[in-house]
């Protein structure tokens, strides 16, 4: 599928002297916007009331979006690699914004199916394309620090929710003065409709800015002082290239799929239940010693660690290596889950620290995976390979909450659960992390039969440097 010339990869090849530090904000402009997907709980109750529907029916909107994220990242990954980041970011901006605008129309006209189609399907495609759009470009601009580079962008996805949650509350308060953001007040459907309209337009402008400042490095470009021969010194880091089509035929791809699936499933188990979980862990009779406001604070703290872990752990992986850092995420994660299940209810501070570190590993797992893929498969089609791997996220998004909710359903009634009721679910997560840990241990360099032949053009196009840039 051809793209208009102003979006084409060959138009955005940077000239010598271009400052690569303009690329991270371009990536962040996209990821901070699509990270709104984690802030849907802000207006969930309002949509339930507006459509006179159930939490499940409204929750499906988010589920559709995450499934579409995984599917579109997998399907459009090769297209993104071939056409470059500007075309991908531009397309993502159009889909993500259109999703909000159609969703707004659906809320304004009382048609829930339009919200499913808009935010869920169309917005979800924008999520998938937007998520992978800057990744391979960042890896190419920062061959010396790929973990830092992808950590910065994917940190933005975590940060997007931090911005969207308070901003949405503020906007809905403006559109419906009766809503003040405190517990017990619910904004009107009209306010949520206007919120969607506003976010759709703001996100369009932000993402377009990112798409127009992004550049790709020339084939022969290298950062000053960077010696690629040093990169090869690590056993799992290749200088060869594997196509996306071949990558999915290798055991390494599927081992990393299992690693990501297990890490995300375990993390979502806590994230999904964070607020009721901390209250249940410290329940004394009918009441919890942790107030509702403190529980909301706990959710906020987890968001901070989710975002911080993406940057800190992914950057750390540049120094200690990708395989060792996943041994930490999964191995130390197992120990932390066991501690949470056994002594987590002994003190609030202990529970908070354990959960926060677990969530930082969850974020770190997301942010480090593109660099791990680049180490194993090279930069040739790393975006497309990353896109295919994100199907693990879509699967984990279904499996994580399902495991936790099913287990808790067998343990008692919400509002009456105590710490012991969470133990079976937490030990299932330990088992999942153990599976991921073994899968990570089994990762070895990709067999040379999957490498692209030497001397072939492993660049999506043969770009001529932009006259304008």
């Amino acid at each position: 599928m051809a793209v208009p010339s102003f979006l084409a990869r060959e138009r955005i090849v940077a000239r010598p002297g271009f400052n690569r530090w303009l690329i991270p904000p371009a990536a962040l402009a996209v990821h901070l916007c699509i990270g709104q997907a984690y802030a849907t709980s802000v207006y969930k109750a309002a949509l339930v009331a507006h459509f006179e529907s159930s939490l499940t029916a409204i929750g499906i909107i988010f589920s559709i979006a995450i499934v579409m994220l995984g599917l579109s990242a997998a399907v459009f990954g090769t297209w993104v690699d071939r056409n470059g980041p500007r075309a991908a970011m531009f397309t993502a901006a159009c889909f993500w914004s259109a999703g909000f605008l159609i969703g707004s129309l659906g809320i304004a006209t009382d048609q829930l199916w339009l919200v499913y189609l808009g935010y869920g399907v169309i917005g979800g495609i924008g999520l998938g394309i937007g998520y992978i759009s800057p990744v391979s470009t960042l890896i190419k601009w920062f061959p010396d620090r790929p973990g830092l580079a992808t950590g910065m962008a994917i940190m933005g996805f975590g940060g997007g929710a931090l911005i969207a949650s308070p901003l949405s509350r503020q906007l809905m308060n403006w559109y419906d003065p009766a809503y003040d953001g405190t517990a017990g007040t619910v904004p009107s459907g009209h306010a949520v409709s206007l919120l969607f309209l506003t976010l759709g337009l703001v996100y369009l402008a932000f993402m377009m800015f990112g798409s127009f400042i992004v550049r790709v490095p020339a084939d022969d470009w290298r950062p000053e002082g960077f010696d690629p021969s040093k990169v090869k010194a690590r056993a799992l880091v290749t200088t060869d290239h594997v196509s996306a089509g071949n990558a999915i035929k290798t055991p390494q791809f599927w081992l990393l799929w299992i690693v990501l699936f297990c890490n995300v499933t375990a993390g979502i188990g806590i994230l999904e239940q964070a607020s009721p979980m901390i209250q249940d862990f410290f329940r004394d009779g009918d009441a919890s010693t942790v107030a509702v406001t403190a529980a909301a604070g706990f959710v906020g703290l987890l968001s901070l660690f989710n975002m911080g872990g993406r940057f800190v752990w992914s950057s750390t992986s540049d120094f200690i290596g990708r395989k060792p850092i996943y041994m930490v995420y999964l191995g130390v994660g197992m120990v932390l889950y066991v501690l949470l299940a056994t002594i987590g209810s002994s003190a609030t501070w202990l529970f908070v620290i354990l959960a926060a570190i677990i969530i930082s590993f969850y974020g770190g797992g997301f942010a480090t995976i593109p660099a791990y893929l680049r180490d194993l498969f090279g930069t040739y089609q790393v975006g497309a390979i990353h896109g295919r791997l994100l199907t693990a996220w879509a699967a984990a998004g279904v499996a994580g909450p399902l495991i936790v909710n099913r287990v808790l359903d067998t343990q008692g009634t919400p509002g009456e659960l105590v710490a012991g009721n969470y133990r079976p679910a937490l030990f299932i997560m330990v088992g999942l992390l153990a599976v991921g840990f073994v899968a990570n241990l089994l990762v070895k360099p990709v067999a040379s039969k999957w490498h692209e032949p030497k001397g072939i053009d492993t660049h999506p196009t043969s770009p001529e440097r932009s006259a304008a840039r």
Partner: protein
Amino acid sequence: MSSTNTPQGSTHTPTGLIAFAWALVGLPLVYGLYQTIKTASSLFGG
């Protein structure tokens, strides 16, 4: 748009543009961080 061409065909990215781009993404992030820390502080404030 993002850079100034030099006679040699190389380019120079204006520092102002880099600062503007970082501010554009950094300021909302600071707002989000501030609001989240304010909420999270209720966990320790009782």
